[in-house]
């Protein structure tokens, strides 16, 4: 299990390696415990969840929890799942489109107010969201669009500070000579972006899309405030509302939490390399 070297290595080194891996596996176990507990609790009934001594594996495995989750009126899981998919997908598409425009401008083009506007973008990134939230909320309610997904998705059609920042890092890697060569050939600025710059950063676009999906899937504050009907909620708000009203029904809450987290975990495991690349680029230049 632990990577104990089989070749003849100095015994001290072997002992060190064993201790290292033992410690790391223990820490990893602590980090995984909440996931494990959530998963096993999702397949127990309430009595089994609180039973002593602790059962580390559900017996029997209660698949009926999942079935019940799909048929409850006070937690329309499948509808909310669909809402989350729609919400996260729309935001990801919007962000990929709008941010690739602005980030290209900041990363590859020279113009007069560029550094000022980019500076403001970075400031916007650090701004506590609430300090701009209330007027925007009042604006949407004047337009009568509260209770719909318009307020949740529209802003992303214009861009998002974080993703512009992230994409810019990738655009900055494009050699300027490449773009200048195209200019010499008489290509229009739009064509240079579309045919030369964009193909260079398409991996970055996938990364931005993935991050956008995860952020939106987990987003809580905005949908909590803009949406009113249970049938409109994404999963994050649906799960919260269910848990707040039915605090006793732990097994259903856990089944809901499990199925809310599962898509993101699977998505991450499938695309880990891209995630790490995105993280490396977004932290520090």
């Amino acid at each position, binding site marked *: 299990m632990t*990577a104990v070297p089989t070749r003849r290595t100095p015994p001290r080194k072997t002992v060190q*390696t064993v201790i290292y*891996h033992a410690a*790391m596996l223990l820490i990893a176990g602590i*980090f995984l*415990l*909440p*996931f494990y507990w*959530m998963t096993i*609790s999702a397949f127990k009934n309430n009595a089994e*969840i*609180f039973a*002593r001594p602790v059962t580390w594996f559900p017996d029997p495995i209660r698949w009926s929890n999942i079935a019940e989750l799909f048929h409850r009126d006070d937690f329309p899981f499948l509808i909310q799942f669909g809402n989350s998919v729609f919400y996260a997908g729309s935001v990801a598409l919007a962000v990929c489109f709008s941010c690739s425009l*602005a980030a290209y*401008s900041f990363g590859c*083009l*020279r*113009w007069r*107010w560029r550094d000022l*506007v980019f500076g*403001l973008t970075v400031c*916007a990134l650090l*701004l*506590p*969201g*609430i*300090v701009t*939230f*209330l*007027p*925007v909320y*009042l*604006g949407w*309610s004047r337009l009568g669009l509260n209770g719909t997904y318009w307020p949740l998705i529209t802003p992303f059609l*214009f*861009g998002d*500070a974080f993703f*512009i920042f992230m994409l810019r890092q990738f655009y900055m890697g494009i050699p300027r000579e490449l773009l*200048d060569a195209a*200019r010499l050939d*008489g290509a229009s*600025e739009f064509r240079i972006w579309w045919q030369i710059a964009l193909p260079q950063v398409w991996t970055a676009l996938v990364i931005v899309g993935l991050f956008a999906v995860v952020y939106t899937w*987990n987003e*809580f504050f905005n949908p909590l405030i803009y949406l009113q009907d249970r049938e409109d909620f994404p*999963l*994050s708000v649906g*799960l919260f509302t269910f*848990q*707040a009203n039915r605090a006793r029904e732990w097994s259903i809450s*856990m089944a*809901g*939490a499990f199925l809310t*987290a599962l898509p*993101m975990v699977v998505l*991450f495991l499938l695309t880990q390399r891209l995630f*790490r690349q995105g*993280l*490396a680029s977004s*932290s*520090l230049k």
Partner: protein
Amino acid sequence: MAILAKENTAGASSPPRRLGLAGRGEARAGFLFALPWMVGLTVFTIIPLLLTFYIAQTKFQIVGPPKYVGLANYAAMWIDPAMWTSARNTMFFAVVSVPIKLVIALGLALLLNRVTALSGFYRTVFYLPFLMPAVAGSIVFMLLLTPDAGPVNIALKALGFSPPDWLLDPKAALWTIILLSLWPLGVETLVFLGGLQNIPQDVSEAADLDSPRGWHKLVWITIPLISPMILFNLVIGIIYSFQVFTQALVVGGTTGKPAEATLMYMVVLYRAAFRYFNVGYAAAMATVLFVGVLLLTLLIFRTARSWVHYEGDSR
């Protein structure tokens, strides 16, 4: 290209474009490409920011027009015990959770900074909690910390401690939220790890030769070299921890159960605006949060000059 741009004169408009126009064309394109974002930034950030400061000076209850009341909302905040409780809780939360989180993340990064067969697995495990939706994570922690049947207390009891009732004891409840916030530290860890992996091999080896004690190297070589990452994690951590909301709402509801022990600033703001429809008051709270976070960030950046070391910096 900018040097060549000077010779833009007659005939430049003929189809095969001269270099002269490239600079100007590029500038126009740059502006146009950024235009949607500049509109978005203005409509969704800059104007609302200014409006918030205006609304903060009005009595405004969503229905009906706002009425100018000067600084009355700030005066009301000053005598609002819930505001003070929440501000105290939030500051305690930020001051305790951020340093603990950075220390653990740095420790993990140091442990991860070696190549073994399981490195990839460990990294994945430490990053995973970050993907957990905050609502789901909070509910799971409430179950983990249940007094009698939760595994945390069972483990603590087995080790001979007498663990508190994490969710009902006002002294312990805030620690529940702190624990909860420590779990997703994958991003911080990977940022530190990135910094550690950028330390040149020869610097690291020279340090090993100079001093046999590991912690000398840590304090005098490693930490100064990754101080930009510490600054980054610290600033982001402080900014976000002052806005803690989801975990607090799931654990404590809008009243900060038990006994306002988990009442956070953002929760009070939320209930002022969306339960009591007192938007003016909420806006006043938002401006105070903004100014507070701004001052704190500036303070950190100011002290950073003395402890953050940038490579290539000759000081």
